[in-house]
């Protein structure tokens, strides 16, 4: 696997040369150079490690009512069912529900972007002019998964090559359609409209649909999700994704790209020190080379303080927020003591 990934990196870094060889694949490379910069390392091994999964799951903060709320997805709504249950039955139902929650809150995988397929199988110049159109051949043998399916293209100049990713996507979707996935990219993911949707705060909708529409290693998936996460970070709308499957992915993205300052600030300002600690722990797991990764303080405030002083890029703002939080705590304590005294306790 590591070897494969190394090859991926080599190919991506030399994509300009390949683009010249195949002038009609320009579309696929639009976002490659940008997003490769975001994932120079392969995030998959870290993402799937049990520690990271546990923290992401813990940060998601399950609210069962939000997980199972009825969503307006154009489906017919079921009327609620009321049942009389003994306490054992109720317990069993609750256990089943927990299982369902686990299923629904699986964080969509974050893996490295795929590289473009540029494999020429044969070049037969005697076939030049056979037809003005390309021929796309798809092997529809039963039981072959989409990613392993043989799809080849005979160009009008007689070249036989493996299909590019966008062709593979179309052929797979034509012959083996995935439910709710569209053959053409929904306009929602194109630029003026994407910003519009995000400005309306429909983050979960965008991310859910991106999960359906794209494979997790698709460069377009990176573009859509990272735009969404950046927007959330800019607008400080972190709670919009709370107890959805995307919250872990959001935290992972921000930690990976070392831009959690706003997130930490948000937590401190909302008195959620434990969450801030978990976020910084995730940051340390994903960036073991960071300066504050060594801190082994049990005290939450010192732990945060270490991050602020060593790794934060907005030190002053975070310092002030932390100080005001401490003062607020003191005042609260003072008031509580006063109340206790007044009650004669």
């Amino acid at each position, binding site marked *: 696997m590591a070897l494969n990934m190394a090859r991926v990196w080599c190919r991506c870094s030399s994509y300009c040369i390949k683009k010249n060889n195949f002038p009609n694949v320009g579309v696929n490379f639009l976002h490659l150079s940008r997003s490769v910069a975001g994932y120079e390392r392969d995030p998959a091994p870290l993402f799937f490690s049990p520690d990271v999964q546990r923290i992401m799951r813990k940060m998601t903060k399950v609210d069962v009512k939000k997980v199972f709320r009825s969503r307006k997805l154009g489906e017919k709504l079921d009327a609620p069912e009321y049942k009389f249950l003994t306490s054992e039955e109720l317990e069993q139902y609750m256990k089943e529900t927990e299982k369902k929650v686990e299923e629904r809150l699986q964080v969509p995988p974050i893996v490295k972007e795929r590289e473009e397929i540029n494999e020429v199988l044969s070049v037969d110049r005697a076939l030049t002019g*056979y037809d003005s159109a390309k*021929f*796309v*051949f*798809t*092997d529809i043998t039963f039981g072959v998964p989409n990613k392993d399916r*043989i799809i*080849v293209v005979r160009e009008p100049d007689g070249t036989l090559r493996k299909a590019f990713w966008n062709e593979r996507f179309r052929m797979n979707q034509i012959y083996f359609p995935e439910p709710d996935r569209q053959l053409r990219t929904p306009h929602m993911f194109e630029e003026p409209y994407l910003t519009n949707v995000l400005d309306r705060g429909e983050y979960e909708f965008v991310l859910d649909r991106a999960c359906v529409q794209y494979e997790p290693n698709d460069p377009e998936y990176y573009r859509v999700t990272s735009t969404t996460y950046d927007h959330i970070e800019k607008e400080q709308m972190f709670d919009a994704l709370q107890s959805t499957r995307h919250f872990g992915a959001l935290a992972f993205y921000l930690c990976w790209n070392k831009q959690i300052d706003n997130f930490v600030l948000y937590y401190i300002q909302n008195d959620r020190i434990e969450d801030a600690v978990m976020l910084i722990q995730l940051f340390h797991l994903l960036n073991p080379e960071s300066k504050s990764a060594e801190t082994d303080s049990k005290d939450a405030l010192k732990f945060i303080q270490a991050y602020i002083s060593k790794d934060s890029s907005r030190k002053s703002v975070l310092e002030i927020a932390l100080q005001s939080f401490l003062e607020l705590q003191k005042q609260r304590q003072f008031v509580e003591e006063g109340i206790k005294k007044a009650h004669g306790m």
Partner: protein
Amino acid sequence: MPHPASGGAQFLQHTRKIIRFTRKGCTNRPFYHIVVMESFRDQQDPVIEQVGTYDPLPNQHNEKLVSLNLERIRHWVGNGADVSTPVAQLLGLCGFFPIHPRSYMTAWRNRRAQAPSENNSSS
């Protein structure tokens, strides 16, 4: 329940089978199924099995789409089924068979037909 690819025709052991096109679609809109049937049957008769499709009209990306169930084609060819020339050309173009001689002929004729018109326009 029969397999979805099964065409419902009777399979007789000692008749000649052929992998060929049958025309589907409608007027002015050809679409072909690649099927296995007995070679003496009429084109629209029930087939033994469908092993692919061919859409001869290019789509918006200027592609002609062909789907082939290579596993079943391999099976039928191995059991002595004949392959009609148009299908053999497609199988040749996809690299499954050697290129059919007729493909080279067509390509050469197309190139020759194009050449004088270019000469005329340049002169």
